[in-house]
């Protein structure tokens, strides 16, 4: 009986004795489980699902569940390695006292079980508690009505139990593996095993620097939003690799180089810091690089999702320039008068009048740009799109008369002259040569034009070309008919208007319009070329659900990443405190004053801790352009807003980071100065 209780008892004792390191670990586990439960709860909750746009939101949150599990696994593995390093001495002692590795495995098993049980209980209960809060926030975001019923999602609990059981099992197996590999003497001394002085690996350091340079260069140079996504992923991977290389190898190389500079190195302020740093960096480089990458992730996620959330009303208006837009795929009188008639009929029925009417016609063609030469041939466009940064744009051909009318301008063009208006990019040439047509001279660049839903919906940038008259449009229409054959583009009659009634009524009108226009299709199949009807009210909830969901997920994941960074910092401070204690004792015996010791600690701890923050700031600065370009794909073109949001995020994050630094560094000072 007592034998059976021995292992759990030893396990409990082990946790209690090491509470300085175990408590934060258990807290993190609970936090991760709590977050997982909340996200999973919202994903599965039928209440959320029934909300307007809730299904869409749940799709995004579902993705968040996966991220949570994967991240928990990686992160808990990492923090557990800190714990095991500290526990090895104790296990070595047990081993010498006569416990074999099987006994130790049993202790470890009980320990894992206890931690699992405690953090599960804490995590799930906090999760249930806070899930209501999250639900309310989400309801608010989607503009639904809050419910005051308290729900518990059983399925989420089961998922959490299973997923985290697997993670804990893997962690335990990993710890067992480490203990089985070591002999008792090694276990006893594993914490103080003398390590070789780090050699500067200039090769890796240079590779890191080169990778970072290339990634930064790519991020800055890329101009096309579509290729930005691809390049972004590549450069993210490169930046991660480079960050690790630079923190691990580069930092040591820098320290070594500093040591070679005798005049600099042999100064009281630098002597101890630089030599300690070389050691710290070798071992902690990976941890610091992780902090740096986590910080960058937090910054990117938060700033872009906040930005999308703030800018969603603008984006909506860009996507839907008017409450209702009827786009008829021809400028032929017969069909357009039918559709316009249908609109009139429906609006009469509802007793509404169109306001703020926007009407013009255009031709849209896609073209591949080779500088100022536009390729229309689809095969050659395909060829072009295989290059790294292909410049493919949608061309909107509009008459200058429409431009003048809509924008209140008074421009006249002679033959062969055009005015251009590029979106999501620049057009820097003075001429445009259209394949098989001829060259236009760019007379002017328009500063603005009415938004077009097709343009804001598409990833590719657009170029509006305002031509002299209807005849030019016609010629270009005929030209592309010849080139594209059955895949040809259409002329568009664009007719949009706002309504002053509420959203539900707008949705009804949208649906009625849809029915009415469907009738035209049945009655005049020969004249039918297609009509698209956009009703902003109908899509608004979906739109809000998507950006609200991203925002929500951004906040949740941001919180998790920050928690992770905090914990890594804490463990670093504590484990280094124990290591550095004896060093500072020696220094004080040799005649270093307390003040000098404090200064030396300050300077190296500051450098070590703020290096990741600074590095992530630099990463952010270089990523800014490319992220802004990717956001433009979502229709968010306000780079100023993004800049402000990013700076705010960086400021807030930096303040929090500093606060955490001060709290954790206090425990470091306490340990080093022997108060513990």
């Amino acid at each position, binding site marked *: 009986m007592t034998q059976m209780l021995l292992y759990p008892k030893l396990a409990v004792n082990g946790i209690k004795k090491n509470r300085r390191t175990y408590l934060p670990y258990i807290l993190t586990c609970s936090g991760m489980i709590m977050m997982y439960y909340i996200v999973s709860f919202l994903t599965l909750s039928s209440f959320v699902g029934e909300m307007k746009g809730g299904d869409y939101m749940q799709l995004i949150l579902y993705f968040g569940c996966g991220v949570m599990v994967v991240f928990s696994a990686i992160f808990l593995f990492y923090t557990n390695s800190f714990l095991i390093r500290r526990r090895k001495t104790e296990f070595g002692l047990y081993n010498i006292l006569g416990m074999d590795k099987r006994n130790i495995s049993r202790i470890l098993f009980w320990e894992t079980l206890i931690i699992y049980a405690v953090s599960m209980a804490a995590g799930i209960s906090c999760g249930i508690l806070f899930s209501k809060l999250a639900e309310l926030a989400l309801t608010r975001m989607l503009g639904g009505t809050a419910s005051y019923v308290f729900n518990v999602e059983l399925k989420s609990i089961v998922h959490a139990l299973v997923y985290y059981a697997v993670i804990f099992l893997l962690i335990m197996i990993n710890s067992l593996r480490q203990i089985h590999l070591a002999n008792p003497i090694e276990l006893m001394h594993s914490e103080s095993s003398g390590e070789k002085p780090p050699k500067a690996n200039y090769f890796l350091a240079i590779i890191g620097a080169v990778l970072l340079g290339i990634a930064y260069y790519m991020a800055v140079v890329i101009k096309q939003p579509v290729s930005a996504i691809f390049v972004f992923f590549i450069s993210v991977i490169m930046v991660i690799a480079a960050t690790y290389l630079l923190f691990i190898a580069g930092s040591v190389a820098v320290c070594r180089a500093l040591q070679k500079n005798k005049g600099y190195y*042999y100064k009281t302020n630098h002597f101890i810091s630089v030599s300690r740093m070389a050691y710290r960096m070798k071992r902690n480089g990976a941890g610091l690089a992780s902090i740096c990458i986590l910080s960058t992730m937090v910054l990117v996620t938060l700033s872009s999702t906040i930005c999308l959330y703030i800018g969603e009303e603008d984006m909506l208006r860009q996507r839907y320039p008017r409450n209702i837009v009827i786009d008829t795929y021809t400028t032929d009188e017969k069909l357009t008068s039918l559709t316009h008639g249908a609109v009139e009929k429906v609006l009469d029925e509802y007793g509404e009048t169109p306001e703020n009417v926007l009407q013009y016609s255009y031709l849209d063609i896609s073209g591949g740009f080779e500088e100022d030469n536009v390729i229309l041939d689809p095969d050659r466009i395909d060829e072009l799109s295989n290059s790294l940064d292909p410049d493919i744009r949608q061309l909107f051909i509009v008459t200058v008369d429409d431009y003048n009318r809509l924008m209140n301008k008074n421009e006249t063009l002679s033959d062969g002259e055009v005015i251009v208006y590029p979106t999501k990019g620049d057009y820097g040439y003075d001429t445009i040569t259209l394949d098989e047509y001829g060259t236009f001279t760019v007379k002017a660049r328009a500063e603005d034009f009415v938004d077009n839903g097709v343009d804001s919906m598409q990833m590719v940038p657009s170029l509006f070309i305002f031509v002299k008259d209807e005849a030019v449009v016609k010629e270009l229409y005929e030209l592309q008919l010849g080139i594209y054959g059955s895949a040809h583009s259409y002329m568009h009659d664009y007719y949009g208007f706002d309504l002053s009634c509420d959203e539900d009524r707008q949705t009804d009108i949208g649906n009625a319009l849809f029915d009415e226009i469907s009738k035209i299709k049945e009655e005049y199949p020969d004249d039918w070329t297609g009509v698209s009807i956009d009703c902003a009210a109908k899509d608004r909830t979906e739109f809000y659900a998507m950006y609200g969901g991203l925002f929500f997920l951004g906040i949740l994941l941001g919180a998790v990443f920050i928690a992770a960074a905090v914990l890594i910092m804490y463990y670093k401070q504590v484990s280094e405190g124990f290591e550095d204690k004896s060093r500072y004792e020696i220094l004080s015996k040799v005649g270093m004053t307390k003040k000098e010791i404090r200064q030396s600690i300050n300077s190296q701890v500051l450098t070590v801790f703020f290096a990741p923050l600074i590095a992530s700031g630099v990463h952010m600065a270089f990523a800014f352009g490319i992220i802004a370009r990717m956001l433009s794909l979502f229709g968010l073109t306000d780079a100023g807003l993004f800049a402000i949001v990013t700076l705010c995020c960086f400021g807030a994050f930096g303040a929090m980071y500093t606060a955490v630094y001060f709290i954790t560094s206090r425990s470091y000072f306490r340990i080093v100065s022997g108060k513990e």
Partner: protein
Amino acid sequence: MPILEVTNVKKTYTARIGSAKVEALKNVTFSAEKGEYIAIMGESGSGKTTLLNILAALDKPTGGSVLLDGTDLSKVKERDAAAFRRDNLGFVFQDFNLLDTFTVRDNILLPLVLTGMSYRDMEKKLLPAAEKLGIAALLDKYPYEISGGQKQRTAAARAMITEPKMLLADEPTGALDSKASDELLSVFSRLNAEGQTILMVTHSVKAASHANRVLFIKDGEVFHQIYRGGCSNEELYKKISDALTLMASGGNA
């Protein structure tokens, strides 16, 4: 005038639990002349480490005074103590106390760096000191790469490089094998012959037999002392052994 004057030094500790007082040093009085080589011997718990800590200004006596070259150690302020140690004393410890992140060179230079000396001046001092201790070839090695004896000689070089008024050694041979011990002791003798004042706390009769004078401490008091006079090391060894036997058997010398 003696370089070190220890007068009626007392040290009492209050136990952590309760108010029971432990007298580590009852009443210690002795003095050391410049150029002397003194060994302090005593059993574990006799108070010799406490005495050394007081001499090193790491600890303050409860009573009495310690004058080093005319400076009263109890008057040295806490925050000046480290600088005082650095400028006036050199230390050699049983467990070497070398910093593993430094090369032998940097370990030796450490006290000079702390005083803010320029690298050019340091370099001038480094080589002679290293050569004197026979570690000139090891300067670029790290502590983990060299033997115990070499480590202790590095520590001695670190202690000597500031040209201290007094070299304090706490069981310097405690962690060394007999060959390394012999080497270190002959280094100490040579330093002493060049005029260095040395005060060494030790268990080892062998180590003590290299000194000019041996003080025996028992129960917090100087119990006995032996002068070398004209004795050889071996004769002194014999005398020390006899004195220790006598002390252990409770007799009065």
